[in-house]
């Protein structure tokens, strides 16, 4: 994020943040839908995409959770998946607050 700001200012950082969260909710939704139908490919694809984009923004905790989700989906190991998706959801909320602070949007 700091690198993005250096390169394109706050405007770019905000644009990347907004498209990241728009994509993240779609991916999480898709992972939950995949989990509901036991579609391992859909879950793995969603986790894969979310891992890449969160790592790009430096959200390493989310990236690690997604990596675990992708690996488990590849093994069709769904036992812990719901819990994992909830954890990603919580991390996303935290990351959003942290970004708002970093971008000077909190009062």
């Amino acid at each position, binding site marked *: 994020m700091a*690198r*993005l700001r250096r*390169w*394109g200012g706050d405007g*770019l950082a905000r*644009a*990347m943040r907004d*498209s*990241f969260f*728009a*994509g993240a909710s779609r991916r999480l939704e898709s992972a939950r839908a995949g989990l509901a139908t036991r579609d391992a490919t859909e879950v793995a*694809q969603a986790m*894969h*995409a979310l*891992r*890449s*984009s969160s*790592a*790009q923004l430096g959200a390493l905790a989310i990236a690690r959770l997604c990596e675990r989700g992708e690996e488990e989906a590849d093994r069709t190991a769904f036992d812990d998946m719901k819990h994992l998706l909830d954890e990603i959801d919580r991390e996303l909320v935290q990351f959003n607050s942290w970004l708002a602070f970093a971008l000077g949007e909190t009062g």
Partner: protein
Amino acid sequence: MKVLVVEDEFMFAELVQRGLREDGHTVELARSCASARALLFVREVVREYGAILLDVALPDGDGFQILRDLRREHRTTPVLMLTGKRRSADVVRGLDAGADDYLTKPFDLDELKARVRALARRGDPKRADRLALGDVSLDRDKRQACVGGRKTAMTPKEFAMLEYLLLRPDQVVTRFELLENVWDMHFDPGSNVVDVHVARLRRKLNHARLVSIETVRGVGFVLKARSGPET
């Protein structure tokens, strides 16, 4: 250079496009295998790209297949695979399918830009890293312009326009040619965008004693070398 970016994730697509445009490239974006195929194989007049940045995991298929199909048609456009797949088996698969380079996400934007420049050199072995006419020169890799012995800051469009003109010294370059190759517009927008940018570029070439941009009325522009001052 014209670059096709095949990437479904909006954030990456946006980031890559901005980075490449910053480097003076024109970018076309495909967000699925189907639209990439439409641009690469189905169009009546198939556009050739200077380079292709290809994501592996696309919503309707995988990028490896597009790459294999390109190579099957003996098309040698340099391809950089851009993907979150980090296992060496995936890298090997990409390179074996005919990729020229492979970059994993997350990536550093400066590294991506450098790799695209390297692809451009590979794609055109005759490409000169430095262009010069009189006392105006461009270092295409470092993106630096030098006018009358001074480093001169240029916007990406000014740089791309000067690069285009330096590749065609003493030739008339039409406004439409500049629109197509610098702005990637394949129609006349009916604005004076080219003239405005030429005026700005002329101002930046003020320090050049030996080069000028001349207007050919109703047609376009010529980058001309003047003879040096007599001593």
